[in-house]
């Protein structure tokens, strides 16, 4: 039990009368990178919000690090990065990070460390609103890195980034997992499955597959994940 970072049982979420997640179970082990893949609107963000403890859920339990999702103890141990870069566009990058460092009680020195980690060391004094979308996303990610949480919930952190940066970020995610952190990373780019320890394929609010990239390839006989997703989606529909 203790090697599970996240455990979701019978999760049901209804938004505006529609069952966005009709009923979902999943277990995510500690020290791993889990990719949450699926098309836009399939419920990825709702699932991540439920695990972060900010989503009103209809039924089911979500346990993170042995505590109910969103519990006060978890607030310093779980880093949640929303899809829209939730940082202040009218502050400089460093002012944003100084603020989040103060909230988390992190040392001021960690601000320079995380700027380095997300490749924004030279943009510390830029106004966040004047950065590109991808740079803003990295400021948002940097704010989560400040506290060195045990669990990272990252909603589409690599969207719109150039391939070099995407590779660097995935290397960072894998390094964090090697250090024992647990990462749940959503993406609608199927090829990013390759860089994860395990992959959750989501469609219409349910999981259509769960396994390592190799297992999913073996199951479907497909080489690329775009094709694997199609095969699995057709099978689950049949």
């Amino acid at each position, binding site marked *: 039990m203790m090697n599970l970072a996240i455990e979701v049982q019978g999760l049901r979420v209804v938004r505006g009368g529609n069952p966005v997640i009709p009923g979902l179970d999943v277990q995510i082990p500690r020290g791993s990178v889990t990719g949450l893949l699926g098309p836009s609107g399939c419920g990825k963000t709702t699932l991540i919000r439920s695990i972060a403890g*900010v989503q009103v859920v209809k039924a089911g339990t979500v346990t993170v690090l042995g505590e109910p999702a969103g519990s006060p103890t978890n607030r310093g141990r779980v880093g949640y990065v929303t899809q829209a870069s939730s940082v202040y566009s009218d502050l400089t990058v460093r002012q944003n990070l100084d603020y989040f460092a103060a909230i988390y009680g992190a040392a001021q020195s960690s601000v320079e460390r995380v700027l380095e980690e997300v490749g924004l060391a030279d943009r510390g004094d830029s106004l966040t609103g004047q950065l590109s979308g991808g740079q803003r996303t990295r400021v948002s990610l940097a704010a989560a890195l400040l506290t060195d949480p045990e669990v990272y919930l990252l909603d589409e952190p690599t969207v719109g980034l150039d391939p070099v940066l995407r590779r660097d970020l995935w290397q960072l995610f894998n390094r964090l997992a090697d250090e024992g952190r647990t990462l749940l990373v959503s993406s609608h780019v199927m090829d990013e499955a390759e860089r994860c320890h395990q992959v959750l394929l989501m469609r219409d609010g349910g999981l259509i597959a769960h396994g390592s990239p190799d297992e999913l390839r073996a199951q479907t006989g497909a080489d690329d994940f775009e094709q694997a997703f199609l095969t699995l989606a057709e099978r689950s529909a049949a």
Partner: protein
Amino acid sequence: MTRTLATARRVLQQLSHDRRSVALIVLMPSVLLLVFRYVYDSAPVVFDRVGPQMLGLFPLIIMFLITSVTMVRERTSGTLERLLTTPLQRGEFIGGYALAFGVAALVQSLVSSAVAIWWLGLDVEIPWAIVLFAILDAVLGTALGLLMSAFAATEFQAVQFMPLVVVPQILLCGLLQPRDMMPRVLEVISDVLPLSYATDAFSELATADGFNATMTRDLGLLLGFVVASIALASLTLRRRTA
């Protein structure tokens, strides 16, 4: 406490990047007072009687608007949702806002009171009490803005709460007609509106020689309204949303 201060500092930093808003906050009440003064150029007595009211009213309106729009922005940008997943407490968050805009209110009130008293020749016996109530009114505007922002889904709606929340109070506060001369129903309504007590205090200040019991009562009631609004506002921050 550190997180409250950090939040206040962050809000002021955001404000400092917006020079135009800073200029508007600091100078606008003074400019409006100036206009008001010359509207009654031929009857300076009226300015002495109603001027102090304006000194309290303008900051309330301006701080209400600024606070509610800023808070709606915080709610819609996702930053509030994120902050609520951190160790930051709701009271610390709201307290930080109240503190930051309280500082802005202090600067604004000092400037507008100085302009009114020394430049426009507003005749009052206890200028420090004018400043005190002007600050309190501005903080009240902030507190009401924090509370009302919970009911606005967009910045557009937040701006429209101004006529809803502030204008009825202006009509009923005793500025246009003494409250005890209004129909009973309106008088009872005005009893529970904070601006009535602010107006009452400024009316006293316009004529009184010293700080009297009425002002002490008004001060206490206004502080009560501020604390109650801030407490209610922090209850409107929901960690979980649909």
